[in-house]
């Protein structure tokens, strides 16, 4: 079973040289720590910054430089600043090669829900609906089950949707799965996790083809 860092590490393996990447809040943010050596990847944050560097050193925070999670950040040489419309032009116009975000639920057809629990949580969708509706390449990073142990990989989402049939890959603490033809295709198992464990934790249609290798992270 992976921890959050492990999920981030596994997703970092999906990065390719020269990619522009938008990372959501939570587990996705951790991915920036695991970029393979020598690989050039630039991070975009939808509030209007490209080429985000590490967090500032203590005392060097600048209220005018934040990311979409409202965290203080730095900008690297070669970075740029732009307004919100240009930022979403990058996103909607598919100039970003990879979007990684968290989810509350993912369905076997690629639907995703991550912005609202009716009557309980009304934070708003932020940029998530633009991101999932636009990106060709979306990876969801999340725990396989919720706090009550119920599967987050479902036949149909029960919560209000963020996007329709848009998720192509899910990386959880238990597995790597592709979404194709209305089903989760099991690609890899987390260390120490059996195919049966994954089956038990997956409500949506799960396809298992041949031997499912264990991840190497």
């Amino acid at each position: 079973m992976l921890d959050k860092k492990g999920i981030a590490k596994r997703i970092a393996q999906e990065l390719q040289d020269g990619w522009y990447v938008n990372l959501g809040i939570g587990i996705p943010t951790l991915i920036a720590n695991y970029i393979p050596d020598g690989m050039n990847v630039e991070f975009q944050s939808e509030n209007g910054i490209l080429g985000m560097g590490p967090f500032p050193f203590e005392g060097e925070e600048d209220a005018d430089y934040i990311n979409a999670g409202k965290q203080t950040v730095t900008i690297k040489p070669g970075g740029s600043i732009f307004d919100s419309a240009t930022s979403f032009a990058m996103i909607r116009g598919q100039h970003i090669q990879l979007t990684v975000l968290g989810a509350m639920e993912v369905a076997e057809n690629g639907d995703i829900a991550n912005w609202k629990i009716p009557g309980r949580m009304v934070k708003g969708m932020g940029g998530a609906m633009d991101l999932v509706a636009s990106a060709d390449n979306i990876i969801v990073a999340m725990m396989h089950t919720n706090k009550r142990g119920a599967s987050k990989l479902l036949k149909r989402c029960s919560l209000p949707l963020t996007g329709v049939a848009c998720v192509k890959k899910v990386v959880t603490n238990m597995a790597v799965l592709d979404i194709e033809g209305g089903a989760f295709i099991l690609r890899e198992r987390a260390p120490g996790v059996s195919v049966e464990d994954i089956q038990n934790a997956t409500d949506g249609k799960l396809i298992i083809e041949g031997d499912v290798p264990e991840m190497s992270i």
Partner: protein
Amino acid sequence: MNKTVKDAASAIQGIKDNMTIMLGGFGLCGIPENCIAELVKAGVKGLTCISNNAGVDEFGLGLLLQQKQIKKMISSYVGENDEFERQMLSGELEVDLIPQGSLASRCQAGGAGVPAFYTPAGFGTEVAHGKEVRYFNGKPHILESALTADFAIVKAWKGDPYGNLIYKGTARNFNPLMAMAGKITIAEVEQLVEPGELDPNFVHTPGIFIQRIFQGDKFEKRIEQRTVRSST
């Protein structure tokens, strides 16, 4: 062409009960602090506020929410404000949540005389309710309309009496878009400089979009998530 006004109090003259106002900023970054404080003082009520966020409980638009001056919020993310959540769940506050990119483009469209456009964002979700769906290149899109406001209030780093503005860092965000979409647009700036001091080639918001400008008294520039790395 001198658009300078004395202070925030003069700048907000004419903002009346039940008007629609746009406010720049992302979280607490790049918000017009001085005008918000002045709106609290003025006690204007029944406002419809278009702003990406709703501040936090004791800063930004949260101050207007506490005084119940806001009737309706049009925003994309309001997760940092308990009073907001309380007013919304109790039905005291009307809320229209829209995707962030659509919010940005709707303000831009409003300023640019484009009444409506198609976007893929929100198709198949609550956001699409009652909106036209049309397929382009086999992909579903929804029709979104332009947003404008009686007043837009933006915050910039530097400005000149012509209303030309330069923003700093990610405090830019929605400010240049909303600056275009106000019937009257107010700019509060950290530094009001002489005409000619701003390089015309690097002006972010051309003065034509601004009707009033003043140098703010004080900018607290509160940080929501102070995140640092330890020096090694």
